[in-house]
């Protein structure tokens, strides 16, 4: 019996403050030991706690993949959509019901390969969405294939001789596409990540946080980078906090420096503000404010 088991003995009345935010009836989750996704969810919950968010008014939308399963564990209105399409789903949800805080929570392959077009257009529109991308640099759910974020020289199941395609620099892409807020952290930076999340809950417009996260099962192991703990040591050692750093200089490599911090925080009118001002300018009093909820006298929703 290992030492760990003695330490991990949990009293029966123990209460974890994240529980009310999670669908505890769905535990245990599917993520591997050492995976960073759960860490990001802890930060997300802490950010919700700290910001005193009304969970009835927070909706979370995920795509497909390991991170795509986050929506399924979040105890709020939660949508597990199709591969790559969390952002356009979230766009419709937000526009129909602007009082919702709509969070898109998905992985790098989902958001930047199959969903890349939607990402840049939502950023261009400055749609009021909070996009959290857990970047494990690989397609994990399907067994470790190359992603547009896999750094050069890493090996994957579909690049057994090494990746030679240049990778996306997500923070630079997000800035260029028009995001109002761009930050990057790793799963080592739990305090900073939670604070960043709290910050974007308060900020209007398209906000983007990249979280570098280990996939011990498929990325670390194949690339001889050790387990989850090794990844934390690497993140600790290689990370440099440089707020406001030019995003074009923040590309990630296989084992090099990781520039983290808040890179972009700017104010642009968001989509709905732009829509309204254009319509008022063109139509004046003829403009009717959107009223999209189904008018239904028979609705007796008790809330």
């Amino acid at each position, binding site marked *: 019996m290992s030492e760990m088991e003695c330490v991990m003995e949990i009293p029966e009345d123990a209460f974890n403050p994240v529980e009310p935010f999670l669908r505890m009836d769905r535990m245990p989750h599917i993520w591997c030991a050492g995976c960073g996704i759960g860490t990001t969810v802890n930060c997300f919950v802490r950010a919700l706690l700290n910001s005193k968010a009304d969970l*009835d008014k927070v909706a979370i939308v995920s795509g497909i993949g390991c991170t795509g399963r986050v929506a399924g564990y979040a105890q709020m209105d939660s949508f*597990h959509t*199709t591969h790559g*399409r969390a952002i356009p789903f979230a*766009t*419709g949800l937000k*526009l129909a019901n602007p009082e919702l805080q709509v969070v898109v929570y998905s992985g790098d392959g989902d958001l930047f390969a199959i969903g890349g077009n*939607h990402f840049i257009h939502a950023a261009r529109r400055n749609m009021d969405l909070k996009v959290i991308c857990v970047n494990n640099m690989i397609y994990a759910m399907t067994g470790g294939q190359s992603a547009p974020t896999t750094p050069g020289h890493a090996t994957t199941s579909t690049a057994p001789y090494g990746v030679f395609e240049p990778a996306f620099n997500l923070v630079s892409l997000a800035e260029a596409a028009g995001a109002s807020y761009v930050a990057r952290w790793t799963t080592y930076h739990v305090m900073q990540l939670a604070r960043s999340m709290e910050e974007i809950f308060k900020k209007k417009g398209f906000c983007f946080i990249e979280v570098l996260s280990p996939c011990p099962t498929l990325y670390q192991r194949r690339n001889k980078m050790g387990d989850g703990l090794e990844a934390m040591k690497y993140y600790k050692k290689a990370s440099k906090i440089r707020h406001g750093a030019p995003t074009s200089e923040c590309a990630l490599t296989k084992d090099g420096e990781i520039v983290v911090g808040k890179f972009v925080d700017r104010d642009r009118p968001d989509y709905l503000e732009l829509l309204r001002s254009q319509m008022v300018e063109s139509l004046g009093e003829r403009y*009717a404010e959107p009223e999209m909820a*189904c008018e239904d006298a028979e609705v007796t929703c008790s809330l």
Partner: protein
Amino acid sequence: MHADPKGVLTGVHFLDGDHACCEGTLAAGARFSAGYPITPSTEVVERFASRIPTVGGIFIQMEDELAASIAIQGAVWGGAKAFTVTSGPGYSLMMEHIGYAAMTETPCVFVNVQRGGPSTGLPTLPAQADMMQARWGSHGDYGIVALCPSSPQECFDLTIEAFNLSEEFRVPVMMMLDECVGHMTEKVVIPKAEEIEITPRRFTKEPPEKFHVYEPKENQVPEMVQAGAGYRFHITGLTHDERGYPNMNIDAQDRLVRRLQDKLKPLANGRGLCETENLEDAEVVVVSYGITARVAQRALQLARRRGIRAGKFRLITAWPFPLERIRELAGRVKAFVVPELNLGQMVYEVERAAAGQAAVLSVTHAGGGVHDPEAILNAIVEAARL
């Protein structure tokens, strides 16, 4: 309930099918549309983009059809009635989200103004070659409804029906126009709002603690909720249980997927829409839909003049297919003649329904124009000689 007068352009109009369809969406209560331009369907959303800011809603032009077809579903879960519009190539891209709408039981409407295919095909010219795609285009087993208008007036009327059916059965409903009907301009009468019946969304009356998002209720259809109302529900495209939680075992799959088809049975048996003429004494029945039904009308007149007892069966609800009605007819007629602007699609359903009791003659056309009525007439004459 009655239509909200804000969206209803009551009066007598001269409209093409695309514009009439747009007026139908507004009368039905649609206040959100996401679209992507594609000929010959774009006029529907162009009109919506022009009308909706004074009615109180949003049109957003998305970056592609994948985005448009899922944005409308986000809007539906946000509480709106929503639709998208496309044609062949875009329809192919939307297949993934037709499956998502079927799986998540998201009520929404897809308008397809059919053009010639495959691939880019004939962007400006008609076809009816997406009929099987409408039914089977997304992977897996599921059910949908497809309606086929033959005139701009029907583009208006049936669009309202499409929204009503989508709310009643919680399925994606396909409005299967063709380029001819979409671009044909005719008189369209839009009634007063109080004369338009609207099926309200079936919101649950259960409190959140008792509510299961996919518990089958009346007619096997679960009740709706909307985001932000305190239910904290979960929706997934994975096979799920009544709580909406992923449950990937054989029993859960069987229960869910069978229900997705079975819930449409009331519509398949008796409630499907069709238009019939001279079936009482018919020896030959022409089964057609959309613009082709109007071409067939001429062939039917000519056949009757020649003394052939020809009858008309115009499919309005193409899916679910009216299997029972065609089977009943098959027992007492010699033959069916099935003209379509494709190389034979709905004719398979007619054959399946006839089950050998009556002959079935397909009158094909690869698209780009409409049939010569003579071609349909010749088939009727041939059928009468059998």
